[in-house]
């Protein structure tokens, strides 16, 4: 049993224990936090092992599973997946800590904790799966728990709306993942294997036209999950109806499943086909950047604004992926992790505010947060600055590197087009700055309502501070992550060069 099996087994075991053990839900949550801590520690160990390792997949397992259709229990972790595993473990830990003192008002905390652990297991499984079908199973495993999180613990004022939002999320992503499955099966029929490492070796042998089809299927399939414009329509509703932990995990982890899948399979499995499709992805990415920013400007609800800002950030990741270069891969990976931490923090903040005020509408929230609740306002200011890409915070490097990689895309790609993309993305950065600054002014500054709000509570500090540390840490020392992405890129660039 390798460390990765343990990394999957612990949350799954935790989910079973939490739902089955006859203890109070508080005790069960403590147990879950304990297990999540172990998972987090283990994921950090894995990251270190990957950093120290010679490159390639570490901690591999290879066991028979569904032999008759050629599916093996293949797991492995590399520099592309390790940071995302750590991010998943960290966000799950934060969510569980947030649930410890603040049980959901509608009750059923035990169920919610179980689902959070299941989402963790499914996400980590997706990141470390090396067999396409195992990947697919974990990819799908996340959906049902998330559906329940939104549909059962979502916005208590709108039971019909939250159900609809959850179902829309599920249906769109399931159509997407079924298309991904079709692409997987096409890969299998071309290469004779479900094993990613084998497919990567035989990638050059796949018929070119077929590679293009597969790459396009990946783009649409994972694009529904990322979500790419114009498949993003499920996201704002899902976020605005979801409970805080649901939003954090949705933005921080689930969206990454899409970008990770696209990165992994475009670069490793069908690079030649992906190069043909990449300009379209880049175009959709920059449209998403601008669209997300404009939509944010128009929002009257803070939570919806953060949701739309995710669409823009994912647009940067898509642009970085579409450059098909090692720099692009590193940028995408960095932006992924940065977005997970920053947006997770933003959603925690919005959730905290919603707990206090009862709404996330700007008009209800009022102004003058700096005076009413200085620490809370400071958290928001830091997160918003990071999200808009202020140098020195995590968001900056992802966006900057994405635009930089668009400046010099893969030689097979039309450079002029990418220069246009870069300029449009730059406009998007300006717009992003505009709406976040506007939000800070609308929310934090001014002499607003005189009612003081409860400031950040100790348990909130515990849940939020790891994300703040990551936000500042990655901003100050981006090499901590870029180093690992570099090595992954070096690994993959061999494939691209072919």
């Amino acid at each position, binding site marked *: 049993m390798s460390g990765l099996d343990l990394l999957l087994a612990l949350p799954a075991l935790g989910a079973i224990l939490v739902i089955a053990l006859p203890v109070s839900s508080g005790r069960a949550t403590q147990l879950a936090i304990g297990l999540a801590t172990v998972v987090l520690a283990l994921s950090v160990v894995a990251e270190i092992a990957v950093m120290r390792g010679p490159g390639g997949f570490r901690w591999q397992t290879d066991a028979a599973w569904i032999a*008759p259709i050629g599916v093996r229990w293949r797991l492995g972790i590399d520099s592309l997946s390790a940071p995302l595993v750590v991010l998943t473990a960290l966000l799950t830990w934060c969510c569980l800590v947030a649930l410890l003192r603040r049980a959901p008002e509608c009750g059923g905390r035990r169920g919610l904790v179980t689902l959070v652990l299941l989402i963790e297991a499914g996400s980590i499984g997706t990141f470390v799966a090396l067999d396409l079908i195992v990947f697919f199973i974990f990819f799908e495993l996340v959906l049902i728990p998330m559906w329940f999180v939104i549909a059962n613990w979502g916005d208590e004022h709108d039971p019909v709306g939250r159900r609809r939002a959850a179902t829309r999320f599920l249906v769109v992503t399931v159509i997407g993942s079924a298309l991904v499955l079709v692409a997987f099966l096409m890969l299998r029929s071309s290469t004779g294997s479900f094993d990613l490492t084998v497919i990567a070796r035989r990638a050059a042998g796949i018929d070119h036209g077929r590679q293009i089809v597969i790459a396009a299927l990946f783009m649409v399939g994972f694009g529904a999950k990322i979500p790419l414009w114009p498949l993003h329509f499920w996201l704002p509703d899902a976020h605005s109806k979801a409970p805080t932990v649901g939003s954090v995990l949705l933005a921080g982890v689930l969206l990454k499943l899409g970008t990770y899948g696209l990165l992994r399979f475009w670069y490793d499995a069908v690079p030649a086909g992906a190069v043909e499709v990449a300009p379209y992805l880049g175009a959709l990415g920059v449209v998403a950047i601008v669209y997300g920013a404009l939509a944010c400007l128009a929002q009257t609800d803070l939570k919806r604004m953060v949701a739309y800002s995710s669409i823009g950030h994912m647009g940067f990741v898509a642009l970085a992926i579409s450059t098909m270069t090692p720099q692009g891969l590193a940028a995408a990976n960095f932006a992924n992790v940065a977005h997970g931490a920053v947006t997770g923090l933003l959603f925690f903040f919005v959730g905290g505010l919603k707990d206090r005020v009862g709404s996330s509408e700007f008009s209800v929230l009022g102004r003058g947060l700096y005076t009413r609740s200085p620490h809370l306002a400071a958290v928001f200011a830091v997160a918003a600055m990071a999200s808009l890409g202020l140098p020195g915070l995590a968001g900056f490097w992802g966006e900057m590197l994405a635009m930089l990689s668009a400046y010099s895309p893969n030689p097979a790609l039309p450079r002029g087009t990418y220069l246009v993309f870069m300029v449009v993305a730059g406009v998007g950065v300006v717009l992003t700055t505009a709406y976040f600054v506007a939000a800070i002014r609308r929310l934090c500054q001014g002499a607003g309502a005189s009612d003081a709000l409860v400031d950040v509570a100790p348990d909130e500090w515990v849940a939020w501070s790891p994300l703040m540390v990551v936000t500042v840490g990655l901003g100050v020392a981006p090499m901590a992550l870029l180093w690992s992405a570099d090595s992954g890129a070096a690994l993959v660039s061999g494939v691209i060069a072919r």
Partner: protein
Amino acid sequence: MTQVVDWGAVAAPVCLVAGAVLALLIDAFWPRRAVGLTVAVSVAGVVAAGIATLALRHSPRVAFCQPVRLEEPMSCSWVVDHITLVWWAVVLVATGLVVLLLAPLAASGDMPPGETCFLVLCSAAGAMAVAAAHDLITLVVAMETVSLPSFALVGLRRRDRRGGEAALKFFIVSVVSTAITLLGISIVYGATGTVAAGGVAASVSSGAAIQPLIGVGLMLTLVGLGFKLAVVPFQMWVPDTYVGAPIPVAAYLSVVSKVAGLAGIAIVVVRFFPTYSDTWTPVLAVAAAITMTVGNLAALRQRHAVRLLAWSSVAQAGFLLVPLAAGGHSTDIRAIQAYAAMYAVVNIGAFSVVAAAASWGAVDVSDFAGLVRRTPALGLALGFALLCLAGLPPGVVGLVAKVVIFRSAVDGHLGWLAVVMAVNVAIGLVYYLRFITTLLRPPEELPSSAREGSPSSSEGPSSSLEGSGSSAAEVPQTLAVTRSGPTVELVAVATLVAAVALSVWPAALFQILS
């Protein structure tokens, strides 16, 4: 000319028929203690047939052979090969479970025990014969052996007019379809001069047959079989028949009858017209796409639990057709069988819970609210079965079965069909999940829905008083139906355990088949 019959090859269906006759006799001669014994004998018949099936697993066997013409190789009407054995296994498992589901209805006097068991086992024997049929006449006779007892089963419930109506509808549709099949077969016979599989295939491939006629004959034959499988546009009998029939009979129709239709179609296209695949693959592909889409869209609108499962089974039939549309190669057949095996287990599991719930008056999906908390075993069984049907983890076995179906479509270069399937998986999710959330809903909403449900459950007894004045003594027995028997719960739990085990170790699904 005398035929040497290999009794080993026909032992399994013979065991079923023997069990059927014994069950009927026991009921006739010891009517007092009939129920338990009848059911036991029926199950024993199924088990014996299972043993006979297992005994054949190493070598293909044939029976009823004779040369079509002199100096030609023998042509056999009955071929038991590997594919047949898997169909037999699916049919036997499903039949055994259905007999257990019927036990409480028989015990309460709602259905006559002897006749019920007799009809089920005879019909199942017919389904086995379909899977072994190797000439068109055997196929049609076997098909009718499946259907005729089913009509009776649908209408067998005492004091129930809806059952009669459902049976009549089912009967008329089925007879029409049989007539169409017969017409098709006669055209094929006219064009090729033979009804034997090898003969038809050889004649078709050599070009000796009259080509345009062959196409017509093939299509008409498929149309008739499509009625059995409830392929759109021949699905209209399904919802009404399922709702009118006793629930275990609906389970039987949705699994065994469907498997028989599917095996029949597979046999016709693969064994009789292998070289004609340019004609039948596009037809089957379009039929599969329309069937799954119509079934799913109709299921979206259903409130009635059995009606929902009925439409869902229509949609599942669409998925089952996909590998045939992909060419029906040996991997495709294995994909169908894997899917059918999964479908058989979880669908019977779902129907068993619905049958158990019907006994306390739950009819609509909303009546199932809080089932997981009230009776966790039943609630989890239904929930897991629905997840498997939807093909989402944790119902991994359903997902793996869907994967092999998708694989057939992709390998068969049916990209468009794969995309249609992708959309359908998503549509299916909506109603399956709606049902699942109802199961999980807090039970405090239950009392109102239970009260809503109770009038419909008391409808049975009250109408029974009008319908059968002479059997007033049976009224208390009828009321006893309101408690489902332990066998129903046993079936539910058994299917749950099987589905969970297969989800942990999906390889078993394929190992059983190989």
